[in-house]
């Protein structure tokens, strides 16, 4: 979540030595000099670089199987070219459009609740005067973040079971128990509330940090000018944390498509597929349960490209409009 990875003094990258080096003596010599001087540093980077190439970039190339027929046990990059065949299949696949819609709805709901609520909680915490109380609430609200998704899913299933607490509350108000996990109409509510439960507290950290950097003198000045607390919050506090808000919004938009894959996988069942099944869980079943690797890779590639496009456009829009961007 580093906000700015660009380094002011980093000059534009010289081309890699192999390409232009033969023609450009000067570049070649400086690279040689750099290598001679810093070879020990470069050597430290070798194993991590190998990690990135093998486990991050090779799978990106591996996506080529979306356009080739892949045979399990065969080559990593598939056997024969089939062009856009798999893309066409999923564009014609009604299940794909259903899971596409589910992904979009769950993503939008998550963004709608999980983005603003940490800001609200941070503002509320900021108004607390007792240091002990503030610390207590923070400690408690961070706790769910440290849980395994398996535990979270287990808790959700227990709480929403027929004899679970949620149904007891419903019973106390005279309602009849609801089989939450057997009907698709409840999945979105359950998913989003558990997501809020797990992420809101942790999400406040960066906002609380941003709040500490706001200059107290601004509040003093506003008070002298007659601003009440609400106006102080509106005109000083919120603008003060705006860069943090924008950064986190861009990051949230970037993960829009890759919505809670592991948690949905743990929570859903065939009865809730109509609302719970998202692109990533569908491709998991298509690819790894039904062994249709090429088709699943095509869906996955589509998903990643939408995700990348969303980050890039959110970043570009934000840079133009509010002047904050990730890079």
């Amino acid at each position, binding site marked *: 979540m580093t906000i700015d990875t660009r380094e002011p003094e980093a000059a534009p990258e010289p081309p890699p030595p192999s390409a232009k080096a033969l023609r450009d003596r000067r570049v070649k010599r400086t690279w040689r000099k750099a290598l001679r001087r810093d070879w020990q540093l470069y050597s430290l980077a070798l194993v991590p670089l190998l990690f990135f190439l093998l486990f991050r970039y090779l799978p990106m190339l591996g996506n080529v199987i979306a356009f080739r027929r892949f045979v399990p046990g065969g080559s990593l990059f598939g056997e024969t070219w089939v062009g856009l065949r798999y893309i066409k299949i999923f564009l014609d696949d009604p299940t794909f459009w259903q899971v596409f819609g589910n992904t979009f709805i769950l993503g939008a709901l998550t963004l709608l609740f999980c983005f603003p609520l940490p800001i609200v909680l941070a503002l509320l915490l900021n108004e607390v005067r007792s240091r002990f109380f503030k610390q*207590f609430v923070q400690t408690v609200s961070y706790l769910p973040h440290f849980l395994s998704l398996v535990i979270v899913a287990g808790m959700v299933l227990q709480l929403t079971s027929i004899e679970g607490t949620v149904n007891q509350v419903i019973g106390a108000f005279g309602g009849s128990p609801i089989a939450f996990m057997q009907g698709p109409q409840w999945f979105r509510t359950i998913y989003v509330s558990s997501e809020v439960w797990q992420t809101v*507290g942790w999400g406040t950290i960066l906002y609380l940090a941003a709040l500490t950097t706001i200059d107290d003198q601004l509040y003093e000045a506003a008070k002298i000018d007659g601003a009440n607390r609400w106006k102080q919050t509106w005109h000083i506090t919120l603008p003060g944390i705006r860069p943090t808000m924008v950064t986190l919004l861009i990051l949230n938009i970037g993960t829009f498509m890759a919505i809670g894959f592991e948690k949905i996988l743990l929570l859903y069942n065939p009865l809730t597929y109509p609302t719970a099944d998202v692109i990533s869980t569908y491709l998991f079943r298509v690819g790894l349960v039904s062994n249709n690797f090429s088709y699943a890779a095509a869906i996955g590639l589509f998903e990643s490209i939408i995700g990348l496009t969303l980050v890039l456009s959110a970043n570009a829009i934000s840079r133009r409009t509010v002047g904050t961007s990730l890079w």
Partner: protein
Amino acid sequence: MITDPTELAKRLEKPAVVRPTRVGDTRGHRIFRVVNVFLLLAIAAVTLYPFVNIVAQSFSDEQYIRTGRVNLVPRGFNLKTYEIIMSDPTFWNSYLNTVVYTVTATLISLVLTTTYAYVLSKHHLKGRGLLVGVAVFTMFFNGGLIPNYVLISELGMKNTLWAVVLPNAISVFNLLVMKAFFESLPKELEEAATVDGLNTYGVLFRIVLPLSKAVIATMVLFYAVANWNSWFSAFLYFDRADLFPVTVYLRNMVSGATTATSLGSADSDVGQVNSNIKAVTMVLTVLPILTVYPFIQRYFVSGVMLGAVKQ
């Protein structure tokens, strides 16, 4: 920029905005403060409830859970299920697996992250921007599930420790946190050490690392908790139950019980017995984290800040 996590934690504890004047508060604001306290207490209660509920269930007799009478306190208090689970060799085997995976993965992650972060912190290094870019790009684009699965299979890493340890060895977020820390160290120290004849490795091991205990501790915590909690790689790449970490053991138990209840079968006994056993397993799985949580929480917080507050 603040670099020492403990200093950062201290700063965080300080009330964000100091407003000493209480006299001038309006009535509306006083009401707000009272409402605010109750609201925050309610949030804390809702957050804590699922934990309390699970612990209560784990000590309860299953017939009380079945009739929905266990909420905050155990009913029919007993340690029977704890005894059953703790005498189950399968459970202990998966617990031990989790420990082994966590320790191995954390060590490997730590070495890779530290070395790469150190290289990235050297601003004079030629090609540094490219090295940063190689890492950062993977935050926004990844190969996806299927190509990763195919790769791990082709490498013959299925059903081996490496499948859960290597593919996520470097977290780019952690890398950037560490890089920010190294950049904040005084350059003069390293220059002096170089003049005294230490080479790059010597500087890293004898000068930089001893100064970085705080950030290394943070990294150990980040990686250890992530590895302790992870389940998906093991679920994906292990076919043999004797390799499962405790999270997958628990997942299989949870999903088994779900199927029983979701089918709405009349003999829901199976599902109900499971809910007590499930609760015990959940408590035991989360126990190490809950035990260290009070001590590690502030380091986590300052670690996140370290990566984020960059000015």
